[in-house]
């Protein structure tokens, strides 16, 4: 315990420290993508850049929206909006595990007194047809990071393997600050708590997700987005090739609308697979188109 004399990092210092650390490893430090997503992987900087042969290194924070996880600000561990810290290194360097452990040291995790373990967990995201092998990284029995070597994206095997790290920021911060309730996290070093920033948002969005969102509207919007994707991909334009990036944005929007309908209990068991299949097909179409464009560039 003697080693832990330094005060633990605030939530924002945790992010800043990771930014500095991964910036020093040559990553471009990006800002969050401005479309609602359910996981940091869906940011085009990961899911699209993982395709093709071009090297790529990026780090960013991405808010994850999981409408069904809303608890009106009353559950100490569960949020419908939380942050993931996402790192992608393509191709994965040989020393990625060491780099990762270095990042834990940088944020003040003392590996002399903690028990860090790499426990098998093969990641899969059927919506984007992506899969990989790796681990969940445990610190004293708690999962703090998902560590994956991408093997396929968009239903096709990747040319070059990327290493992907996803840190659950709130969980990690709760661990570092030794706090039992997410809303008690120190957000900065000036007395602002996580709850001061997000509690009201959690309450209002929980009520919106479960009670106030209008299902017919969501349904219509979903169908609009779906049609838009096909239309965007098939509309002739002055560039002379398909507008895959805007199309992908619309896929993300459709995906979030699906999650909202799901939170309202508006998706029957029998429809579920069909909805997921529709999003997956659109997503795959974008991924394949992007891969082809990358090949050509």
């Amino acid at each position: 315990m003697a080693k832990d004399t330094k005060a633990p990092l605030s939530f924002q210092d945790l992010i800043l420290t990771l930014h500095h650390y991964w910036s020093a490893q040559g990553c471009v430090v990006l800002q969050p993508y401005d479309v609602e997503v359910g996981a940091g992987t869906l940011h085009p900087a990961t899911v699209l850049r993982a395709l093709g042969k071009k090297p790529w290194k990026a780090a960013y924070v991405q808010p994850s929206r999981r409408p069904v996880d809303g608890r009106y600000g009353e559950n100490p561990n569960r949020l419908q909006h939380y942050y993931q810290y996402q790192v992608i290194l393509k191709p994965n360097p040989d020393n990625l595990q060491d780099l990762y452990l270095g990042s834990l040291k940088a944020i003040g995790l003392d590996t002399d007194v903690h028990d860090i373990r790499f426990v098998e967990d093969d990641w899969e995201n059927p919506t984007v047809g992506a899969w990989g092998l790796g681990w969940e990284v445990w610190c004293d029995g708690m999962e703090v990071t998902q560590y994956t070597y991408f093997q396929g994206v968009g239903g096709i095997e990747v040319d070059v393997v990327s290493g992907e790290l996803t840190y659950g920021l709130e969980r990690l911060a709760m661990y570092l600050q030794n706090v039992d309730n997410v809303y008690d996290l120190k957000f900065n070093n000036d007395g602002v708590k996580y709850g001061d920033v997000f509690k009201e948002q959690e309450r209002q969005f929980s009520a919106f997700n479960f009670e106030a969102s209008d299902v017919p509207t969501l349904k219509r919007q979903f169908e609009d987005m779906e049609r838009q994707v096909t239309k965007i991909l098939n509309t002739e334009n002055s560039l002379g090739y398909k507008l895959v990036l805007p199309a992908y944005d619309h896929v993300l929007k459709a995906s979030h609308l699906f999650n909202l309908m799901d939170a309202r209990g508006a998706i029957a068991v029998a429809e579920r697979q069909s909805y997921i299949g529709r999003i997956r097909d659109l997503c795959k179409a974008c991924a394949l188109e992007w891969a082809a464009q990358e090949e050509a560039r």
Partner: protein
Amino acid sequence: MAHLLIELFSEEIPARMQLQAARDFERLFGDKLKAQGLSWETLKAYVGPRRLALHVEGLPLEQAAVSEEVKGPKEGAPEQAMAGFLRKVGLTQDQLVLENGVWLARIEKPAKQTAEVLPGILEEVILVFPWPKSMRSGTSSFRWVRPLKRIIFLFDGAVIPFEIGGVASGNLTQGHRFLSSGEPFAVSDFKSYKQGLKDAFVVLDHAERQSIIIEKAYKVTAEAGCALMEDHGLLEEVAGLNEWPTPLLGDMDPKFLTLPPEVIKTSMRTHQKYFAVRDLSTQKMAAKFLIVSNMKAADKGAEIKRGNAKVLSARLSDGVFFWSEDNRKGNFDQWLAKLNGVTFHAKLGTMAQRVARIEALAGQLAPLLRADAGMASEAARLAKADLASYMVGEFPELQGIMGGYYAEAAKLAGDVSEAIREHYKPQGPSDSVPEGAVSAAVALADKIDTLVGFFAIDEKPTGSKDPFALRRAALGVLRILRQHNVRASLADLVALWYQTLLIYAGPNQAVYVDTENWRGSAGPRWAEGETEVYENYLRDFRAGLLESPVWVIPTDRDYDLDIKFEHVTNAPKVDNARLSFRDYRTVSAEFADFFADRLKVMLKDEGVRFDVIEAAFAAKDDDLVRTIARIRALEEVLSGKDGEALEAGFKRIANILNAETKKGAVPDHAPKVLPGAPEVEVTLVHKALSLAPTIDKQIDDERFAEALAALAALRPDIDAFLDGVLVNSEVPAERENRLALLNALRRLMDSVADLSKLA
């Protein structure tokens, strides 16, 4: 003689794959050494989170020289043939030898140095290594379970040059990720390897890690007045997650002890890989847990224990929430309603329909188990409800167990709660059969439904594929039938299942059959309870369910019994059927074969001679319990004092009859005492005639061993008859009668078992 040491050092290998990987490494490498003519004294693989190693002692320094003979053309063969052969073997004709008119080429394969052969072997083994899942890394196309980092390849003290996947061989390895300096160190042989690792906080041997865990866990729990709740699977897994296993005893918040112990244990095990701990003074679960950490921490594990306790609290808080939600009043009804929306199998319908079939079956089976039919139906109706509960959603392995708790909380009858809890039993060879009659009835109904259902939609196990675990279910059925002495023919059990198909009759669908003579359906009217109209009709219809394939068709009307004439008008289209089931006769026949095979496997595992099983099965008794009794009796008699007499007597009779059968039909009328017959014949005829009713009675009473002993006792008379009388008499009437006598005796023996199957 020399030693070989290989280490494939990688990033963390999944724990569940490790032991199999060690076995595969030994097998593959050993096979390839043998194929190269290399022998060894010892060969053993070692495995841990970051390494897969192989140590071989007593390898020769070079292969044995191999001399190979290749057959060439015959003497005097055309010249082209000889020229072709010489080209192929690379020799001239004066180097060939002529043996028995054929030219032979002797090719001496020079012995290679073992060190030259080994790289090829290692490369092949790595390339074909059967990891359940493997991956690529970076820009390489090389596949391994996780990125490969280092290779040690030492033979006879020297590094063998080798490279694969961009990794070159050497003599360096690394120790524990956090406890050692992390610097690579050199090794020269297995001893220095193992010791070097130990100095760097790595226990190489999986088995040694397991015993360290047991020993230390025992110590830390005993100090706290507790004991580990042993769990072999978990032990194997955690031994694969640690290089330096360090058991620590953590404290759990005692408020969680209000949860059922199974919930706590399962949560600890599946989410956190902790062992549950029992308080020695109360023999109940203690408010503690055992973690096997991979650290010798500077603070003696205080932080690790604190962190793990926190995670466990969060997990168990979820458990408390599920437990209280699941225990609300009226949950069973809501859960059952939810099962309507859960598909059991696309070709068998919903889980709710499965429940309805099991409920009907359990009521029918109950009398066979001397169980109360009402209780059995009620338990079956509720048995699957917990599948819709929160807790079972989180921990599927607690199905049944949770249902039992919830039933107790809902104050259901004791037998009903017990049956809900135990109806999945027995789940494997080591699991017990439910003891209560109601439990056994529901357990049997559950398995019969699974088995006949999948047979009816033609989803039988084939070869090694058994995705619905039907073989296990069949063994479960056999064990329940045996333990509860259920006397039923398999055909009847299958028939009961076909009768349950009436549950598919609903407001917009009908159960439809199309037999040889008529067709008809039970549909909306029946489902709506118009049973008066239906009473007579249904009796015929139920019989029809066993005479035709069965279809479930969408319709808003019933098709009455319709005798087939030339022109039939309103028959529904079975092409539109929602579900369809193969006909009872086909399924029932396949079912009998399948069960006979399962029973044979089961008895063979119990050590029963295969020929004894075959002999008893040849009696073609549809009652499995009685077939087992025949087998047991035959075994008993054959291993006792009467065994030899029985077999010898049978053999003498069978030899003669078999020879006669080739000439023509053997008479099968009752033997008589012919005037002037020799005394040995008269005696045997009398005995055969008087014994027949006794044997029949003994078989009826299932006293098979007594019947066999009585037959064995005939041996002196059989011997005296066959020694003293010529069966093949020149007097046709005598011959006829003597053959009839022998045939009568054989029929008596066959009525217990076909002794000709005995080896």
